[in-house]
């Protein structure tokens, strides 16, 4: 209790409505630390590999990790709720498999793509509706079950087959360049990132998401349609998983029921390193974007000097723990 009332009723006082700028507050933000790590990674990587610091390399590198990054955008919303969605990897597999099977059954590719997105939407919607209707179940449980279920359906559909043979233009999603050097996936991601940034930070929708993450009861009492917004966010997460499925499928040229396994943990790591607390209500899109590129470039850079994958995993594991430990020092303001 800081502001104690003691003088009783006095005349209405002026309440300030302009923010005082505090240099300390400004710099002690989680995002600055991420930014420093980001810079450090580039310095280290360029020291390690002569190939690293090169526009082509850097741009190309983004192609290797941006597919899952799409999901990180919407997963940020889910985690701000204090929820989690571990079914996204399976949603990718299901959407991709259904798209491939329908295409090979004669459906035109654009329609197959639409179906893929629709599958993602439905998968996400089912998650959302179950989580809203069964409030006593946590999202972990619901999505743990659907994670097994969705991939199971993908297996039923395609069994041990691969399916592919997509038209040439579909390759463009995962492999195409704009102006010959900028990967299409990077452009698409930037557009998506801007949309999600605006959605989270500039719109009433984003504000309500934060409100629910902080206190869903108070949000309900304030007239926020908690259930509806939750369903929308989980559906959105399914949709983004389907978009990731498009890019991944294009990248692989064909699909199987076992693709994208373990993606959910990568995505969650991206979001959490970005400063979004799994206890809900906190985190910013900028942090998530920085962390996407930190993890992506770190992996790519170390891979470029052929550090074994396992060692890269250790580095990322330690980075995750250290950074969260650091953020717990309360030095950093980490507000919405």
């Amino acid at each position, binding site marked *: 209790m800081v502001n104690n009332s003691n003088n009783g009723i006095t005349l209405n006082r002026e309440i300030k409505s302009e923010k005082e700028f505090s240099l300390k507050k400004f710099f002690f933000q989680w995002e600055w630390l991420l930014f420093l790590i980001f810079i450090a990674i580039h310095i280290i990587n360029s020291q390690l590999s002569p190939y690293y610091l090169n526009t082509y390399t850097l741009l190309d590198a983004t192609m290797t990790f941006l597919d899952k990054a799409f999901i990180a955008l919407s997963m940020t919303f889910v985690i701000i709720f204090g929820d989690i969605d571990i079914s996204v990897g399976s949603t990718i597999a299901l959407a991709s498999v259904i798209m491939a099977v329908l295409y090979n059954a004669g459906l035109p590719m654009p329609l197959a793509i639409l179906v893929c997105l629709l599958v993602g939407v439905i998968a996400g919607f089912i998650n959302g509706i179950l989580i809203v209707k069964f409030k006593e179940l946590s999202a972990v449980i619901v999505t743990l079950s659907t994670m097994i279920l969705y991939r199971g359906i993908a297996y039923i559909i395609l069994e041990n087959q691969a399916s592919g043979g997509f038209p040439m233009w579909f390759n463009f999603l995962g492999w195409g360049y704009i102006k010959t050097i900028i990967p299409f996936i990077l452009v698409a991601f930037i557009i998506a990132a801007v949309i999600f940034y605006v959605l989270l930070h500039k719109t009433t929708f984003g504000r309500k998401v934060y409100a629910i993450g902080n206190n869903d009861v108070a949000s309900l009492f304030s007239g926020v349609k908690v259930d509806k917004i939750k369903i929308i966010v989980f559906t959105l997460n399914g949709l983004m998983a389907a978009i990731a499925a498009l890019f991944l499928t294009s990248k692989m040229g064909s699909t199987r029921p076992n693709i994208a396994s373990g993606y959910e943990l990568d995505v*969650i790591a991206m979001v*959490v390193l970005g400063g979004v607390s799994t206890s809900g209500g906190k985190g910013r899109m900028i942090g998530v974007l920085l962390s996407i590129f930190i993890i992506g470039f770190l992996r790519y850079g170390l891979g470029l000097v052929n550090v074994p994958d396992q060692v890269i995993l250790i580095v990322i594991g330690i980075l995750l723990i250290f950074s*969260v430990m650091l953020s717990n020092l309360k030095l950093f303001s980490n507000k919405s």
Partner: protein
Amino acid sequence: MSEKSSKNKISLERIQQIREFSLIGFIIVLSIFVQFRNSNFLTMSNIDDLLTNTAILSILAVGMMMVIITRGIDLSIGATLALSGMVTSMTVSNYPSLHPLVALLIGIFIGLISGAIIGLLVAKFNILPIIATLGMMNVFRGITFLISGGKWVSAYQMSDSFKAISTGSILGINNLILIAIIIYLVFYYFINYTRTGRKIYAVGSSPESAKISGINVDRITWLVYSIMGGLAGLSGVLWVSKFASAQSNTASGYEMNVIAACVIGGVSIAGGEGKVTGLISGVLLYGILENALPMINVSPFWQNAIQGAVILIAVLVSALIKRRIGSSNKIRRED
């Protein structure tokens, strides 16, 4: 918040009982169905197999239950299991005369250390369990790979006495089952009849209350992760002994199975809730699914989906039962 009370009250035990009975009922129905399709299902030898194969899962589930009761989760147990299994089997292959008990102790020790590190991160550094264990999962897995140099330890490199840990039997009961039973008895007692055991529930039910009433919340938190680690270490030894092979990717993703078994067994992810008796039925159902699906000739491509659907249904049904009781009892304060 206001509530109506004193009418129509159903005690805590009753809720749990109804839940457990419905689960047991489901297990019975499932068993009858499977038996109908394959008469070998309810034979002694198959039940023995089923229990043996479920033993390791059930041991891990006890630890996971305690972690979940304190509102935590441990994703690193598969990696801890692999690390302990690898170190133990490498030791055994270098010193074949090592007594199996020593091997068990080495494994438990490694697990305890791993768990203690995680406990420290969660309790002292306030890192959320899901993040701490996700990070350490990578680290443990990587260390296992580095120390093994990518090699496996195979059957011929292990002494017979070591392999006998999991194949031997006492009074006709397989050692693994015996170990699991002992663990269950010990932890049943620990959880229900010791002060420390009850404090685990207190911490999970309300950390703030626990702190105010003088319970050392950090110590309890640290303790459950250490126990979890120790059990994972033990399981590591049992695993490599059972399968007579140690790999760096042993039990990769196994944590999900364990969590699923806990959830089916009525352990609430929100913390504070979960009983050993419930856990047993959860583990059994999971074990039966693993055992029965191949036996009734379900296409392997359907197995995943069936498992997912059963878990989902089990979870939803138990939620509905709880809700039924809850609404007649008007527990409106719970969250």
